[in-house]
C-alpha cells in the first residue's frame, strides 16, 4: 500500500506544474478568458509538444497509455491554475468515447490528430429536459439511405466552440428515457444542420447550445454499435467525473492555502485576524474538508474501475463527498476574505466559481448521493423504483 507517484508520474506532475507556473500566472489567465476566443491556441500547441494530449490514449495510437492516476495528476494541477483550455472535453470525455467505441479506422484517423493538437472534440449529451440523466435523450437520428438524419437540441456543451468535431448522442430507438436505443455520431462542427450558440460560463469557461436541424451524418460516422452506446457513455462520464473531482481538489487546495495566508496577513483590531480562535477553527475545518476530499478522490482513483458496480459506487461516493467539500471550503474562503472575497478583481472568487460549477458538472451532490444509495442499498430496498421516479 502506498500513495506515492511513480517516477513517470512525478515527472508528469512536475511538467504540468511548471506549465501552469510559467504560462498561467494570474494576469495571463485574465487576458485569456477576456479574449474573444476564450482560450489560447498557443497553450494547446504546448500541451501537444509536452505530450499531455496523449496521456490517456493507447501507445498504439501514439498515446502514453496513462491511467486514472495520470489524469488525476494533470487535472489537479490544471485546477490549481484554473486552466481554461478544453482538456477535459477533448482528451478525457470525447477522447475516452472514441477510444472505447471507435472502430480501428476511426481510432487511427482521429486519435493521432487529437494527440498532435490538430483536432479538438466536444461531447454533446445534455438536453434541456435531461438534467443529469444520460439516458434521457430526445434528439433523434433516423436512417435515410446511407445517412442518418439528426434533429434535436443539446445544452451546455463544454468546449464546443473550440472544437473541430462534436460527438452527439441521439436516439435511434426506444422511448425518451430508455437506456437502449442511444447511438453516438461524430460530426464536423461546420456541418450544415448544426448551429452553435457560444457563450462564456459564469466561471469564464466556454460552452455552447447546439441546435441540430436535419443534420446528415454518414453511417461511417456512427461511433460504436447503433443503439448500444449507453453503457460506454456512463463509463466515460464516470471517468470524466473523477477528472473533474481531481480538478476540484486542486482548486480546494488553492482556496485553503490562500485563505490561510490571507488571514495571517490581514490585520484588524491591531492584530492578524488569524489570531482569533473562531477564524483558526474555520481554517482547520477547511483543511479537514480538503483532506477528506483528497482522500475520497484517492479512493476512487485506486478503485477497480474495470468493475462497473465498483466504479459507479466509487465515482458517486467521491463526487457527492467532494461536492460537500466544495461548498464548505469555497464559501468559507469567500467569507474569511471579507470584502476582498466578493470582488471580481481578486482571484479567490474565480476559484470559488469554478469549484461551484464543477459541483454541478456530471451531476451534483444530491444526484450522486441518490445514485450511491441506489447502488449500495438496492439489495434491501424494494421501493427504489418509487424513489428514482421522483428524481427530476
Amino acid at each position, binding site marked *: 500500500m*502506498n500513495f506515492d507517484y511513480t517516477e513517470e508520474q512525478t515527472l508528469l506532475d512536475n511538467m504540468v506544474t511548471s506549465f501552469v507556473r510559467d504560462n498561467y500566472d494570474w494576469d495571463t489567465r485574465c487576458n485569456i478568458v477576456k479574449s474573444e476566443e476564450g482560450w489560447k491556441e498557443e497553450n494547446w500547441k504546448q500541451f501537444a509538444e509536452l505530450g499531455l494530449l496523449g496521456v490517456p490514449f493507447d501507445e498504439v495510437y501514439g498515446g502514453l497509455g496513462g491511467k486514472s492516476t495520470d489524469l488525476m495528476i494533470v487535472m489537479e494541477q490544471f485546477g490549481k491554475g484554473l486552466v481554461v483550455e478544453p482538456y477535459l472535453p477533448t482528451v478525457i470525455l470525447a477522447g475516452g468515447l472514441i477510444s472505447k467505441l471507435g472502430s480501428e479506422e476511426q481510432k487511427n484517423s482521429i486519435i493521432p490528430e487529437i494527440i498532435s493538437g490538430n483536432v479538438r472534440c466536444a461531447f454533446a449529451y445534455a438536453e434541456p429536459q435531461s438534467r443529469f440523466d444520460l439516458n434521457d435523450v430526445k434528439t433523434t437520428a433516423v436512417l435515410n439511405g446511407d445517412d442518418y438524419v439528426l434533429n434535436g437540441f443539446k445544452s451546455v456543451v463544454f468546449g464546443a466552440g473550440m472544437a473541430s468535431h462534436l460527438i452527439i448522442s441521439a436516439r435511434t430507438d426506444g422511448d425518451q428515457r430508455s437506456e437502449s436505443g442511444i447511438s453516438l455520431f461524430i460530426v464536423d462542427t461546420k456541418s450544415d444542420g448544426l448551429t452553435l450558440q457560444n457563450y462564456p460560463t459564469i466561471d469564464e469557461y466556454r460552452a455552447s447550445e447546439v441546435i441540430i436541424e436535419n443534420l446528415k451524418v454518414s453511417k461511417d460516422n456512427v461511433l460504436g454499435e447503433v443503439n448500444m452506446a449507453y453503457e460506454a457513455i456512463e463509463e466515460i462520464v464516470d471517468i470524466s467525473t473523477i477528472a473533474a473531482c481531481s480538478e476540484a481538489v486542486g482548486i480546494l487546495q488553492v482556496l485553503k492555502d490562500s485563505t490561510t495566508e490571507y488571514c495571517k496577513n490581514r490585520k484588524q483590531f491591531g492584530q492578524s485576524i488569524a489570531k482569533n480562535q473562531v477564524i483558526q477553527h474555520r481554517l482547520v475545518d477547511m483543511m479537514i474538508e480538503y483532506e477528506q476530499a483528497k*482522500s475520497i478522490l484517492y479512493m476512487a482513483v485506486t478503485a477497480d474501475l474495470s468493475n462497473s458496480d465498483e466504479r459507479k459506487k466509487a465515482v458517486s461516493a467521491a463526487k457527492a463527498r467532494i461536492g460537500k467539500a466544495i461548498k464548505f471550503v469555497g464559501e468559507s474562503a469567500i467569507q474569511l476574505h471579507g470584502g476582498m472575497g466578493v470582488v471580481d478583481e481578486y482571484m479567490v472568487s474565480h476559484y470559488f466559481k469554478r469549484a461551484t460549477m464543477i459541483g454541478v458538472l456530471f451531476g451534483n451532490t444530491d444526484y450522486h448521493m441518490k445514485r450511491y444509495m441506489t447502488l449500495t*442499498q438496492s439489495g*434491501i430496498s424494494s421501493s427504489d423504483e418509487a424513489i428514482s421516479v421522483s428524481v427530476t
Partner: protein
Amino acid sequence: MDTAFSNEDLKFQSEIRDFIKTNYPQELRDSINSKRKLGKELSREDLTAWHKILGKHNGWSAPSWPKQYGGAEFTPTQKYIFEQECAKAECQYIMPFGINMVGPVIYTFGNEEQKAQHLPGILSGEVFWCQGYSEPGSGSDLASLKTSAVKEGDYYIVNGQKTWTTMAQYADWIFCLVRTNPEAEKPQQGISFLLIDMKTPGVTVRPIKLMDGTHEVNETWFDNVKVPIENLIGQENMGWTYAKFLLAHERSGIAGVARSKKAIERIKQIASSEMSYGEPLIQDPAFKAKIAAAELELSALEYTELRTLAKDSAGKGPGPESSLLKIKGTDIQQAVTELAMEAVGYYANPHLGTTLSNEYVGPDYATNLSGTYFNFRKASIYGGSNEIQRNIIAKMVLGL
C-alpha cells in the same frame, strides 16, 4: 499509488482471520455482548481475556512495539489489517493504557530495570494500567496540574487528586504526571512522569457515574503516597516531554474506522426490521440519506487514515495530522451511535430494556442504544477535546 493488498498481506489477513476464529472464546463474546446490552459493567477478566490470548502469540497484543521488547512490530498495512479483522469479528478492544500509552514511554525513556519490571506484564495483560493526567482544575490546560511530588530521601511524597481515571477500579498501576518543581518558569517545566503502584497506602479510588449510568471513570486521590524514586521515568522535571510523546505516539486506530463500519452494517440491519410509514425504515429517503452520508465520510476517513499510515511507514512520522483523525473519527462515532438510537424510535426509552421485575422489553437489538449514544458524547471531549485538536492543527499544521 496502489492500495491493493500484496500476496503477503493477503496471507497475513487470512492468518489473522484464522487465529481469531480458532482462539477468540465464544463465551467471552457472549458474556461481553450480553453485559453491554444490559449496561452491566465489564469485569477485569472481560477486558483482558483477549489481550492475554494475544500476548501469548508473537507479541500480537502489541502490534506497534518493536520486536526487541516483545512486540509484533507489524508494518502499517499489517496493523490496518489486524484492526480491521478484530473489528469485523467484534473482538474486545485492548485497553490502551498499557500497550499504547505507558509501554512506549517505558521502552523509549525508561531505564533497563523499569523495562524489565513493567514491559512483560503490559504485554501479557496480567498487569492492568490506568492514566493519571487530568485533574479537576486541569482539563484542556493539562500543564496547570497541581498534584505534587516532593522528594524525601528515597521516596517522592505524592499529594493531590486525579480525575477521569478510566478503569482505575481494576488498575494495578497508574502512570501520573506530577509537579516536582512548583517554582519553574513555565508550568510545563516542573512536571515529572511517575509510575505508582495502586496498592500503595494513601491511594483512594472513587467511582464517577456517567450519564448512561456506567462506571468507566473515577477520581483517584493521593494522600501522602510514598513512591520509590526508582519509579521516576527519565529525568525529573522532564515529564512534559514524555507526556507529549505519549499523546502523539500511538494514534493508529484512533479513528476507529473499522468499528464504525461494523456499526453502520448493524444499523442497516436494524433499519431493515424497523418500520416507518408502513415500510422498512431503511427505505425512508431521509434515513437512507443519513446512512449514506455517514458511509461517505467514513470512506474518506479510511483513506485519510491509510494516507497517514503510508506516510508513517515511509518514516515520515504521523505528526499533528493525527488530530484530524481524532476529530473526524469521533464525529463519525457519534453520528453512528445517534443513528442507531434514532433507528429504534420509541424503544430508545426503556432504560437498559428491562422492567422493574427484570423482564426484557422491546426488540432485542434496541437495548441500550440510547445509553451508548449518551455515553459517546465523551468521545469529542476525551483525549484532548476536538476544540483542542483544532488548536493543535492551527498551530502545528497551518502555522497560525
